């Protein structure tokens, strides 16, 4: 009974938060609503006995990635969105149709799955079980994912460490770039 009440609280928070992310005109508040959504989702994970996923979800998405998002939004000082009515007019019909289709699909398959699904074990999402699964059955995908992350990291490093050449009047430009793209040295 308690779990059901908690489920509905978290579910309403998650859906309401996600809706707010889309419709709120202020980007900073949209980002904060997304944090709320992540937090509500973490609550749902806890109810599903997936403690590890819940905690990592909060630590990684809410605690790190969204902080960076907010950092960028604050740094760029993004103004409130202004709606261009023409675009809104076209998007309205296409968007709503697609959303209804998507909801119908998810709802149908979710309902089909709901009829057969049941939680088999209660310690399914604990740290021990996830560790065992990651390092035995799923060791290859796990390692591949780590290589993917390494490659992405090297790519970011490469892009931010492009060689700078001194051009004429003390300004610097990336190697092989035209003069229009000369960066002012800071």
């Amino acid at each position, binding site marked *: 009974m308690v779990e059901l009440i908690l489920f509905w609280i978290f579910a309403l928070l998650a859906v309401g938060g996600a809706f707010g992310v889309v419709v709120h005109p202020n980007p900073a508040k949209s980002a904060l609503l997304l944090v709320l959504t992540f937090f509500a989702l973490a609550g749902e994970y806890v109810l599903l006995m997936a403690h590890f996923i819940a905690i990592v979800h909060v630590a990684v998405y*809410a605690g790190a990635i969204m902080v960076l998002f907010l950092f960028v939004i604050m740094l760029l000082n993004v103004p409130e969105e202004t709606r261009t009515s023409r675009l809104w007019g076209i998007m309205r019909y296409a968007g709503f149709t697609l959303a209804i289709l998507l909801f119908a699909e998810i709802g149908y398959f979710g309902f089909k799955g709901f009829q057969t699904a049941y939680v088999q074990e209660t310690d399914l999402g604990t740290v021990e079980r996830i560790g065992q699964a990651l390092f035995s059955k799923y060791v290859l995908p796990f390692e591949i994912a780590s290589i993917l992350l390494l490659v992405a990291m090297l790519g970011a490093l490469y892009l931010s460490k492009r060689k700078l050449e001194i051009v004429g009047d003390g300004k610097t430009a990336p190697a092989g770039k035209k003069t229009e793209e000369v960066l002012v040295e800071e």
Partner: protein
Amino acid sequence: MSLELLTILIAALKVVVVISLVLVTVMILTLMERKISGWIQNRYGPNRVGWGGILQPVADGVKFFTKEDIIPGHVDRFLYLMAPAIALVPALMTFAIVPFGDQMNFFLFGHEITLQFQLVDLNVGILYFVSIASLGVYGLIVGGFGSNNKYSMLGGLRSSAQMISYEIPMGLSIIAVVMLSGSLRLNDVVMDQAGLWNVVRQPLGFIIFVVAAFAETNRLPFDLPEAEQELVGGYHTEYSSMKFSSFMIAEYSNLITSSALITTLYFGGWQVPGLELLSLPIWLEQFLQILAFLVKTSFFIFLYMWVRWTFPRFRYDQLMNLGWKSMLPLALLNIVLTGAWIAYF
């Protein structure tokens, strides 16, 4: 009385007692900080209210409550009002996983009750601290952004960058401790140190954790989000009365929790070496263990204050260089060394 009801009542009582204790300690710390700063700077510190200034925190509290609650006209009202709450809630939540004593069994209304001196013994343990503590930064960011003031905004920006940079070495130094204990539960980490404290086995990790904890709690030498000389008051420039006080309480609760965690992770938690050899009565042993935990934690709280009134503030680029170019590689090296140590011995 049924066992279930009794368990719930005891759990609720524990929550009330622990949160009240943390809040009372915060009150004491505000006085302690000013007394210690006075002592270090060779002056008296507050000594007018009560006996030797002992009622100063009460006077401060009354002042905070009775001050006019000002909401400046240019702020984003919703975010401005939310920020102190967002800062305070995670700060009070993190203490839940700290074990401050062993467990004891006793009989109550005909049931055998196991009372654990820890609010919750989570399976994910220390990860809970890492994730909830990382939410505390939202209070600072939202406060800085909602205040609509350039100084507050800069404070918020600095705190977000600082938190992200120092969370990584902190998490990596915790990984080395977890590798030794083989469990994320803080009770297992404490038990693992029965023979030898982690500060001996993990000297490098200990230093990294302490430095990162200073940065995460925004204390000097890393208090750049509220550097008075540059940013007026940083993220809390526009706040007054109880809302300002909430930020203060959050800061001091974080200080208490990180001192308690330094104790738990590196100084054997509530353990006293050689206490079981004395074969004392169980209640005395438990009492001494809790006392040992309090003494160790108090020492680290003192260390925080000692450092605050001794060292100058870092420059922002120095802060970032230290975090990314020294602490991160050292924390990774520490993990490699710990792995080699485990494999070899």
